[in-house]
Each structure stands twice: as C-alpha cells, then as structure tokens.
C-alpha cells in the first residue's frame, strides 16, 4: 500500500537563514523545531527537541544495531518477478532498485549484537513503502527457516504499508508463508523478538509482526491493521489523536515495551542474553 508515502518525505532539509547558512538544518515534522542536521544524524535520526523517531533505511538500522562488520546478508540478489502481469510493475521496480540501491523491501542475514549471534531482518520503507510481495515473503521465510535449523533467535525490524498490491493474491499468500515459518521456529523453541518501527500496518501487522514472543516498538510510531483514512471514511468515525500510536497499542495490550532508539541495541542484547544466548559454556 502506498498510503503512507506522504509521511515519508516530511523530513526535509532546511537551511536556516538566521544562522550560518552553510549549516544544514533539520526541521522536525512533529514539533516543527529545527536543529542542526548533523545533530539529528548523530542521534540516529531522533529529534533532539521532542524525541521524534525518524525513519531509518535498512542499512542504517543494521549499522546501529549489529556489531561492526558482523552482518552477513542472505539472498542479496533476490528480485521480484511480475506474478500477475501488473502494468508497469517491472519498470517501477527497476527504478527503485536504481534509486535506493536495494533489491526489494527487506534485508535479512545473520549478525552479532554485543557478540551474540542472531538472525536479523530489517524492512526499508523507501522501497514501495516496504510492502510485502514475493521477495519480502521468501526472504523472511528463509531467514526463519535458517534460524530454526541453526537454533538461532530472530529479530525482525518491521515497517510496512501492507501487502504489495501489484502482486495481487500472491502477495496475500506471503502472510501465510511467513507466519508458517514463524510458527515452526516458535514450535522448535526459538526466540523471536519483533521491533515495530514506523509504520507497521496492514498485512505485515496481520502476520509476522504480531507473532513475536516479545514485541517492542519505537516511541510514537504508527501501528495498525487498517489505515486511519480507511477507518474514518468507511466507519464515519472521528479518531482520537493518539489512535494507533505505539503508546495507544501498548495500552490496549498488544506491545510489551516501548524502547527508545538509543537503548535498542543494549535492550536487544540483554533480552537475547536472558534467553540463554551468548552465555559462555560452563
């Protein structure tokens, strides 16, 4: 789905005329405050004024989560076909591969976090709003199968507008495929930690994103099944301001904890360790 595309480009670089005009500034889409872009980037895209968590690309996320040089990518060259002969779909993908450097909307592999080995998957909303088509489904399924076969935990950073419309029913079936692999991993005793990032919606919410043993979310991010616009238009209901934000969903019982980006890596390392991963053999 592409309904969140508008939100994605809100982070604009601004040059603040009052100060040294050579310093690029970041204008926060939430608090409207400005701060030096360098500072915002140094905080891994968190607004220093209001704690707004901006979106990260998958490579950025891996860089701040995994130990240096520990990431080993799976299926780096997998690209999608055109299962329902959808007009312009191959061309659109070609363009996106060019502009983002990604092959599709998820990167998977193994990594170490403070020396603890785990399977990791990170979705990237720059690629068709990280919608789930054949490639996303297959890569996530393979990642879980690898983890099951090797007794590894899985950490999935989710972000998605939902199903990939251009792959029709094939896209819907990826929900079953990924959830099946999650279930097998779970039944084998595997630990699965979900980290919900902005936005996690639609078919991804209704499959592997909701199936973690522990579900973490970044602060104030959007989490839901149906989109706000859809609900407002079909149900003619006015929705509260905080509707579908992480804090709201935690209050409703669907999220274990809300963790700020600066504490994410240490939190994940502790959780892995609490489940016996990375402990020295006695």
């Amino acid at each position: 789905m592409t309904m969140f595309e508008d939100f994605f480009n809100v982070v604009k670089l601004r040059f603040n005329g009052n100060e040294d005009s050579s310093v690029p500034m970041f204008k926060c889409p939430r608090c409207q405050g400005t701060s030096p872009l360098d500072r915002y980037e140094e905080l891994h895209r968190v607004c220093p004024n209001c704690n707004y968590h901006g979106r990260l690309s998958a490579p950025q996320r891996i860089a701040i989560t995994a130990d240096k040089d520990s990431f080993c990518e799976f299926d780096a060259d997998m690209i999608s076909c055109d299962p329902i002969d959808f007009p312009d779909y191959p061309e659109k993908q070609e363009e996106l591969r060019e502009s983002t450097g990604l092959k599709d909307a998820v990167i998977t592999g193994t990594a170490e976090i403070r020396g603890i080995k785990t399977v990791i998957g990170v979705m990237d909303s720059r690629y068709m709003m990280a919608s789930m088509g054949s490639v996303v489904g297959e890569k996530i399924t393979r990642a879980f199968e690898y983890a099951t076969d090797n007794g590894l935990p899985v950490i999935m950073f989710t972000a998605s507008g939902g199903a990939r419309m251009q792959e029709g029913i094939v896209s819907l079936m990826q929900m079953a495929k990924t959830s099946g692999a999650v279930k097998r991993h779970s039944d084998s005793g595997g630990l699965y930690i979900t980290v919900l990032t902005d936005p996690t919606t639609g078919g991804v919410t209704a499959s592997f994103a909701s199936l973690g043993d522990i579900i973490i979310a970044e602060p104030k991010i959007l989490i839901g099944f149906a989109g706000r616009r859809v609900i407002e238009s079909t149900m003619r209901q006015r929705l509260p301001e905080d509707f579908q934000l992480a804090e709201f969903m935690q209050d409703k019982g669907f999220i274990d904890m809300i963790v700020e980006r600066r504490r994410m890596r240490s939190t994940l390392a502790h959780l892995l360790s609490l489940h016996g991963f990375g402990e020295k053999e006695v």
Partner: protein
Amino acid sequence: MENNKTAWERLSLVHTKGRPTIRDYIPLIFTDFYELHGDRYFGDDHAVMGGIARLDGRPVTVIAQVKGRNINENKDCNFAMPLPEGYRKALRLAKQAEKFHRPVICFIDTPGANAGMSAEERGQGEAIARNIAEFMTLRTPIISVVLGEGGSGGALALGVCDELAMLENAQYSVVSPRGFASILWKDASREEEACNIMQVTADDMVRLGVAEAVIEEPLGGAHNDLYKISENIKEYLSLKIREKCQKGIDELLKERYTKFRKIGEFME
C-alpha cells in the same frame, strides 16, 4: 462451466440478491448442526459462525463467515466483516476440533475484516496473524471453500488449509477491487478496471497455486439452483475430507506448509 465471463461480471453475480449464504447451505450439506457461540474473551461476533455437525455421518467442525440475505441480517452480521472476536472464536473452535480429532471445514465469504476503531483496539492484526500461524500447524485436516468474496487478510484468517476450493464465480483477492483502485490510483470508481486486472477468479487461483479445485455452479450462478450447488459442494467436501483423514497428520502438515511455502515468484 461458463468460461466467457469477466472477473467483474462474476463479481456482480456474487453480489446478486439471492446468492446463497452459509445459512442456506448448512442444512443441505450437514446434519445435526449445533452452533457454538463466543470467543470466551470478549464477545460473540455474528460475522463468523461456527459449530459441530455431521458430514456423511462423520463429526466435523464448521467455521464460516456469514453474509446476510437482507438488510436486517446484514446489519446483524456487519456485512460479513469480522471483528477480532470473530477470528478468536474461529480459533477456539479449530483448537476444539483438534482436541476431538474432528476435521475442520471453513467457508470464506467476506469483503474483508472489519476496519473500525474497536477492531483496531482489540487487535485485528494480532487476531488474524494468530489464526494464520495456528491453522498452519493445527493437527487435524482443514478444507476451505470460498463461497463468494474472499477479501484480504480477513479471508486468509480462515484460509490456511490443506486444500482450498473456489465456487465457480467466487473471487479471492488481496483487497477488494474498490480498495485496490483507491489505494493504487486514489480513485475508487475505477473498481471495474481493478477487478479485471487483479486476477481474482477461481481459474486464476488454481493457476497461481492458491486453490486446488473449482466447484461448478448451476448455469447463471449459485442462486439459480440451491439444491444443485449444495450437492456439488457436499460432493467435493465428502471426497476431500475422506481423502485427508486417511493421511497421516505429520505428512498432512508437511504438505500444508509446502502448499503456502511455494507461492511466490522471484529470481536470484
């Protein structure tokens, strides 16, 4: 079978007043049907019904999405758009079937899951995800039949099965054609165009590996001969339930996983 209809023409057939619903089919396919209510957590969703019945004398669990036959019935069942408690009722009954070694028969007939504030608050996404994952390893045979519309995750929550059949004019889609047009083109009025390019028909499902069988409808559609269409559905179910019950459950689960595992097209 009639092969010359467009997807859009078939969709209008599915929307024809008088198209049989699960309430019409149950007495003609099953005997001794006892409806069981509630999810045991929150409530009883009327968009999903379930219960125990006999098929050819064999006890089975039936789980179905309920369309109304008139405006009052449709208000009661919310036009077959389930709430999370509907999916949780379905899961409860599926687990009960597993416990008592009854095969499960699911009937899909929904434009999609309920998209409303209370559905979100009660975890629509989680409810659907949980069903999909649990049905994948449910240790009893599951057969699903799409009666009319199978829309989005709301349909898939009853669609993880050993074998899926489509009624001849039924459709299965990632989202309703209207939703598709609205999302991709920001123009819901292009739903006919959407419907015809989305590949949603029974034949499309067989070709894409989503469905294994097509159940023939009477000439002009299911509403023209309720007895005939019920007989066709029953014949299919009798055959498949017998076949799946003869298989070892571990083999069945492996095949169920593989059925979904192999769907998708990519290059590497």
